[in-house]
């Protein structure tokens, strides 16, 4: 077995391992999860690596236990994370909503089966008004960076941060270096509980309910919820991240995120090399969504196209950003492998280029090539 936790390392590793090692480099000392493809290997790597640094990884009995245990670890001030695929995260949503209101710095990894968890990630799949910062890495190098950034932002804002990857994030191997990244200081965790204040008259209460110990200034649920709303607005102002390319003179702009954006970027670069005036926008934060960058890119273009590996969810945010400046069409679609866990035939630079070119030439009403089918079904 390769021991990898100590010291900076540059070697070939799959994204799942990079997530575990980057988390540990960021100071994460607790992880709990439940196996589910394609997330499973993230759990395996945490289980192997965390004990080496004195941390704890629990193979939880279900996603409900996993998020609950992580909640407890966070309450002690530890950096802690959980994760699953979108299906497993559905089970955790009640806790996500309340952890947000309890202002605990949770980090969540979604190694999703496709991009159809966009709404779950960006709207919050649970109850109430909460939002999570959502980071969508393009490749394994960026996964290493955004994983560490996730822990920083979670502590900075006392708000959950979700890293949205997919089958390719989990299993593609790239040569990466894992070193702690210094994003600056974060507020001290003077809110954490360790038991030492019990009986001193100054005990802490970590509650999502906006209540406080008798004798301290009562907050009240209404004021608490309004404060959370104000915090979300501040996060929107401060934490939007986006990459754009060739948008200044573009006639067609393509918006895509995560692993598929890598295919889109490659296709756009190839088309640019042949003189086609096409640009791309890649949201790195799905929430806060880079609406200003999308709106600026859409100004004066003939068509805004979104490429998503699902029926189309981010397209709603693109339309809200574009606000009628240009027609917005989806050129992605559902495409899976035979198991439904991995990526399908559509994720191919040649096919992506064909579809971009179709709307670039034919405008928003252009007929797209038919979606390719699986080469084989699993059953």
């Amino acid at each position, binding site marked *: 077995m390769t021991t990898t936790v100590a010291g900076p390392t540059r070697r070939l590793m799959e994204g799942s391992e990079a997530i575990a090692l980057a988390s540990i480099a960021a100071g994460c*000392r*607790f992880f*709990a999860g439940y196996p589910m493809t394609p997330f499973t290997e993230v759990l395996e790597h945490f289980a192997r690596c965390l004990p080496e640094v004195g941390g*704890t990884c*629990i193979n*939880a*009995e*279900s996603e*409900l*236990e*996993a*998020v*609950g*245990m*992580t*909640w*407890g*670890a*966070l*309450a*002690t001030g*530890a950096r*802690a994370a959980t994760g699953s695929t979108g299906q497993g995260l559905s089970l955790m949503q*009640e*806790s996500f909503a*309340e952890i947000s209101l*309890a202002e605990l710095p949770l980090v969540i990894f979604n190694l999703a089966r496709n991009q159809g968890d966009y709404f779950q990630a960006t709207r919050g799949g649970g109850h109430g008004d909460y939002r999570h910062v959502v980071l969508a890495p393009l490749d394994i190098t960026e996964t290493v960076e955004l994983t560490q950034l996730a822990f920083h932002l979670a502590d900075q804002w006392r708000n959950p941060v979700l890293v949205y990857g997919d089958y390719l994030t989990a299993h593609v191997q790239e040569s990466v270096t894992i070193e702690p990244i210094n994003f600056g200081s974060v507020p001290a965790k003077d809110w954490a*509980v*360790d*038991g*030492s*204040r*019990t*009986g*001193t*008259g100054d*005990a*802490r*209460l*970590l*509650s*999502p*309910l906006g*209540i*406080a*110990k*008798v*004798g301290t200034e009562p907050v009240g649920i209404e004021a608490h919820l309004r404060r959370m709303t104000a915090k979300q607005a501040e996060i929107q102002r401060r934490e939007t991240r986006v990459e754009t390319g060739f948008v200044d003179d573009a006639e067609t702009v393509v918006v895509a995120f995560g692993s598929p954006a890598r295919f889109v970027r490659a296709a756009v670069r190839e088309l640019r090399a042949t003189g086609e005036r096409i640009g791309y926008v890649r949201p790195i934060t799905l929430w806060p969504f880079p609406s200003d960058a999308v709106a600026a890119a859409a100004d004066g273009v003939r068509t805004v196209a979104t490429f998503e590996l699902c029926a189309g969810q981010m397209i709603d945010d693109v339309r809200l950003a574009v606000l009628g400046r240009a027609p917005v069409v989806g050129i992605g679609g559902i495409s899976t492998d035979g198991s439904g866990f991995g990526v399908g035939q559509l994720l191919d630079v040649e096919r992506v280029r064909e579809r971009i070119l179709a709307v670039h030439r034919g405008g928003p009403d252009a007929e797209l090539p038919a979606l390719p089918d699986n080469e084989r079904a699993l059953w």
Partner: protein
Amino acid sequence: MVTIDTEHPPSNARQVGALKPDLLITGEHHLCPGCGEPLALRCLLDTITELELTAQTIGVMGIGCYTAFSMTLDVDLVQALHGRAPSVATGVKRMRPDATVFTLQGDGDMVNEGLQEVLHTAARGEAVTCVLLNNGVFGETGGHMTATTVLGQRTKNTLEGRDAAYHGYPILIGDLLARLEGATYVARGSVHNAGAVARTKKMVRRALECQERREGFSFVEILTMCPTGWFIPTGEGPGYLHDTLGEVHVMGELKVDGRIRTTEELHAENVARQRDVEARLAAGGLDD
């Protein structure tokens, strides 16, 4: 109808201790008259103080009437979701192994909503102490059937009494937990009279001592009165508890040092205790 004067102590009452446990910021609370939860809570708080665990104790609260105490307990607390306190306590304990960690949950919280949580935590042998306040109803919502409601018990959604054929059978959670290898100490107490309170407090002490020795999971179930949720006069709460819940959820230590005790053993012990008390009363009274 029994009328209780809440302004003055009964004429034969004598004060035997402080009116307020050290770990309560204030003695005031908004629970109903006749509620057993403050008594059960006191067993826990006083024991933490007596065992000198105050500067290391972290509590994890479930959701129920008792949640209101999160504002008045001078204890570092984490508020959990309904049913999920044992997992939260697990995370706390794993990151703070030197802390004394307890959960406080009701029967609706622990046995309905979060049954798997407490079972898995016990099976894992987590060194935490789960305290169940069991009154057989959802008190906070106004007296609805829970998984521990006994057969025949009337609740707001079992108006003619819980019928096994229609509503199923109650879960005896203590008995269930006692059979799990990771559970070291399992006991069921009650607060329906002074003797039961004293006995329950000893159970809480043994559970916390078990946690301090890191012997595994410990559990104390405490039967509590809920006259409001039972729709009976306040003064009849203790008797109703003894005669209905207490007949099914039998009091006693269900597992000590890894040895499981049967319901028959507990019954026999309770009968012997009662006879002893009666004999001593007949001989001139109880001194302790």
